[in-house]
């Protein structure tokens, strides 16, 4: 086992561990922090089925954003859909026999990487062009966009231009998944791609990317509007 392989195997496990522990710790914190008062944003659904429907609309279609700012919605929605498809299609590296559905997705995903990159670039541009978001943006907003753009760019490179040997990549990834380290492919573009992804995983739980889990815990969206019918109590807040 070469030094590079050892380094990256350890790096990958550390990154995945940090991501898992960090992410779940945040989720644990969100889930256990009490919500003493009913604060759903009305008009809100009056039963939990309605709440599920509302969350599906929010998470699946970004409904609030659509009614708020359609330009950002277009960029953001394209970006997230492309990201989802990209992640799903990368799952084929994790299964020994590629499921038929995954293979079917791979057969038409060819432009998704470009859409992902384009949408990110669009969002980056919008941050600079609109004076309000330019004022708001922090370093980490730009850093994350650039990070994702680099990941997309190196991914596109390995797929279309500077081909990498994906059998080796899969072997390496399967090795990680099965705790049976294999040699990392020595392709520099792939290594950059992989490094960036691991760094992103490490940064994930400490960043605004937690919105992916946090949105499910937003009280204004996930509460049922039944304050008059059902008494809502939280241990610390009930004294009589």
């Amino acid at each position: 086992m070469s030094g590079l392989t050892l380094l990256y195997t350890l790096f990958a496990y550390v990154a995945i561990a940090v991501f898992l522990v960090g992410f779940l710790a945040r989720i644990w914190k969100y889930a256990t922090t009490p919500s003493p008062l009913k604060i759903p944003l009305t008009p809100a659904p009056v039963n939990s089925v309605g709440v599920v429907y509302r969350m599906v609309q929010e998470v699946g279609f970004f409904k609030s954003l659509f009614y708020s700012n359609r330009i950002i919605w277009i960029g953001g929605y394209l970006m997230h859909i492309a990201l989802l498809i990209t992640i799903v299609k990368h799952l084929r590296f994790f299964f020994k026999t590629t499921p038929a559905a995954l293979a079917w997705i791979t057969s038409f995903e060819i432009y998704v990487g470009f859409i992902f990159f384009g949408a990110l670039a669009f969002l980056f541009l919008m941050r600079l062009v609109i004076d309000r978001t330019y004022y708001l943006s922090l370093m980490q907003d730009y850093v994350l966009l650039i990070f994702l753009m680099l990941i997309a760019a190196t991914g596109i490179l390995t797929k279309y231009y500077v081909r990498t040997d994906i059998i080796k990549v899969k072997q390496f990834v399967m090795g990680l998944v099965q705790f049976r380290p294999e040699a990392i492919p020595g392709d520099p573009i792939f290594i950059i791609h992989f490094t960036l992804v691991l760094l992103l995983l490490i940064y994930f739980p400490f960043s605004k990317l937690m919105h992916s889990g946090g949105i499910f815990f937003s009280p204004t969206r996930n509460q049922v509007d039944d304050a008059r019918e059902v008494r809502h109590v939280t241990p610390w807040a009930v004294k009589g």
Partner: protein
Amino acid sequence: MGMDRRTFLKLGGAIVIGSMITPGTQYLLASQEKKPGEKSKTRWGMVVDLNKCTGCKVCEKVCREENNVPFYGNKRYDAYWIRVANIRQELPGAPERYIPLLCQHCADAPCVHVCVTKASFVRKDGIVLVDEHRCIGCRYCVVACPYRARSIIFRNSNTWTNKELPRMMIGVATKCTFCVHRVDKGVEPACVEKCPHNALTFGNINDPNSKIAKIIAEGKTQVLRPEKLVRPGVFYKGL
């Protein structure tokens, strides 16, 4: 002869760099097909001697076998590269005769003009071809062809008699290629070779010494639908 590996890799590199803009890179390769008005030394053509044709339809059969042209047994969508038509002058008592109809390999081919993606093109040697990997199946060429020479592959084909060539791709336009794989090897098209009555003659029209050029020079040949001014490469004698 042949390209050494270094040149090939260089070419590959050039392609890669030149096509960074979009996926599907290979299509951006500048092809060297014939530009309009360009003169070339070779123009392949064919002369059909109708006096010798007996309507035996061997050419149809041979063509199917050579080029894997699918036959489904449904007259609505069977594909034909060459077909032998019965023809009879609209005069009382006129005899029935036979005429093989195939792609006329026009110099100003309407199908090439209308093609949306330049999948149809005219080679430098005058052969009109369809790049099946580039065709989108819009069927504009079928509508535009004045000779009904084109077929659409309507359905997955199981015909695979000649394993040297691939099967027909579904959903795209196809037509007679003058058996371009044979012509490139220096062999005559299958129908010409196999015609039992030697009704078909194949050769270079632009070479004045070729057999075909001499037949044409006799002045007894004619082209189909000359009013369309598409300059076909297939000539008919004895109509």
